[in-house]
């Protein structure tokens, strides 16, 4: 071990007499690279993306393509401009592009995606130093930016899944549909029941993705499977997602009901909106969430709390994005509060 770290570059070790060089820890390399992690994440999202392209047709594919391409191009141009090593191949911009497309309604005008990508990659990530230095999750800032700039498109561009099959491509533009959470916000649980029929049908269409929503909101089961795949590969840990999902479930169960405490429907809230995507793919971001187990638990708890608060009491139907962004801002505090203990206490000055 430690060879790659301790040898000086130049490759003269074979001929020169052995020299002991002292390197700074850590010396053990797990063999895992940024690019490897990023492409595994892309792989884990592939089933959900395929399902979405089936649901929403070419529109979703185009959105995905434009979003990823603009993120990658902007990152490359930024790194060139700032004279940094060009590291677009590590795939982090690809992931930002995919996630950005997944949290945007499928039939928004395509020209807004490069703007969101500019905000996400240039302002949030590259201006502050590039990958590893950003305080906020780039994709979520992209969405928040779009919400502030194009509020009408961002709230009405939802369509019914599979409508492109019935009406032929292109007709999907005209019809906008309400997401289940929007129905819940404006009409209560009755409106949701009226729209989807019985309780069981609500859950099945939510789990399979047969309801209007962004790409990251529809196939809840496939996204969860992708997240579990990441868990088993050891790329993410269970702390933040578990804390977040449990907090939302408990709070919506206690306070979410229309007939008193404890009459809420936690399963409806768990399967709905961007909660699962946010829990597995955004609350676990290496850069913008805490790195210690306790910190991750606290982070997930905070995100869950804010999500439930926005969903139940706030003006927006869905609050995962803002909840994660707000907790991103608190991440440096969590790192300090839950820092690992030192092996030796620092020496105290003589009194």
């Amino acid at each position: 071990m430690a060879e790659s770290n301790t040898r000086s570059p130049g490759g003269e070790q074979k001929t020169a007499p052995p020299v002991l060089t002292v390197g700074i820890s850590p010396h053990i390399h797990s063999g895992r690279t940024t690019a490897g992690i990023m492409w595994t994440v892309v792989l884990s999202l592939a089933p959900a993306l395929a399902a979405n392209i089936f649901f929403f047709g070419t529109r979703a594919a185009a959105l995905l393509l434009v979003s990823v391409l603009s993120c990658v191009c902007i990152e490359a141009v930024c790194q060139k401009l700032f004279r940094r090593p060009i590291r677009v191949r590590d795939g982090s911009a690809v992931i930002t592009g995919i996630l950005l497309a997944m949290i945007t309604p499928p039939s928004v005008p395509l020209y807004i995606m490069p703007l969101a990508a500019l905000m996400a990659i240039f302002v949030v990530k590259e201006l502050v130093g590039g990958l590893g230095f950003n305080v906020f999750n780039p994709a979520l800032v992209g969405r928040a930016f779009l919400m502030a700039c194009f509020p009408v498109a961002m709230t009405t561009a939802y369509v019914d899944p599979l409508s492109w099959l019935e009406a032929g491509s292109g007709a999907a533009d005209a019809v906008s549909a309400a997401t289940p959470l929007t129905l819940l916000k404006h009409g209560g649980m009755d409106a949701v029941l009226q729209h989807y029929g019985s309780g069981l049908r609500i859950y099945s269409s939510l789990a399979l993705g047969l309801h209007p929503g962004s790409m990251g909101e529809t196939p809840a089961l496939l996204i969860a499977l992708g997240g579990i795949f990441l868990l088993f590969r050891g790329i993410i840990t269970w702390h933040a997602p578990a804390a977040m999902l449990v907090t939302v479930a408990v709070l919506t169960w206690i306070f979410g009901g229309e007939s008193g405490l404890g009459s809420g429907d936690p399963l409806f809230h768990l399967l709905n909106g961007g909660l699962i995507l946010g829990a597995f793919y955004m609350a676990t971001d290496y850069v913008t969430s805490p790195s210690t187990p306790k910190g991750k638990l606290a982070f997930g708890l905070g995100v869950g709390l804010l999500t439930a608060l926005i969903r139940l009491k706030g003006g927006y139907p869905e609050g995962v994005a803002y909840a994660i962004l707000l907790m991103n801002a608190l991440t440096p505090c969590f790192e300090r509060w839950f820092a690992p203990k030192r092996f030796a206490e620092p020496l105290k000055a003589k009194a």
Partner: protein
Amino acid sequence: MSGFQLIVRGLLAENPVFRLALSMCPAVAVTTNVKNGFLLGCAVVFVQVMSNLTASALRQFVHQRVRVVIYTIIIATWVSAIDMIMGAYLPDLYDQVSLYIKLIVVFAIIISRMELFASKNPLIPSLFDGLGMGLGFMFGLMMIGAVRELLGSGQLLGFDLLGTKPLLIMILPAGGFFVIGFLMAIFNTVLKKLGLGAPPAGGHH
């Protein structure tokens, strides 16, 4: 320093908004268009010049210990004056910025120039320092206002230029912060190129 140099210093090397970073709250709050920036800038020029002159004239008589109170009273007097003048003669314009005119009392830039410059300098330099700082502030507000008005509502000075509203966020407070950040970066880069980039004594508020 000559009077002209003092004015240029207030506009560029020690620009209150982009270099000293003083009075940033109004720089975000009123700058949704150029006109608001201009109006508030005018009021600030008046208050800064008159307060500087008063503080400079009284500098022999104000005791060190009570100077902050005295300065506050001086500023409040001149703010009341411009508030009443604008209310009486320009009622329509006054309605749009009246809240911020009253807030000039607590603008950090005014009292800091009185403390740092006018209390140690004679009348004429204090006049030009106040003029430079006020104009620099006005220049900063109008630059921010121009970018935000153009990108946020597609207009400049109230004239429709773009026909659309490209980026709604620019007329929201968040856009104000973005624009100030970018303009500050550009301003400092340009000054560095011009050889005026020495860091001034920074402020807060």
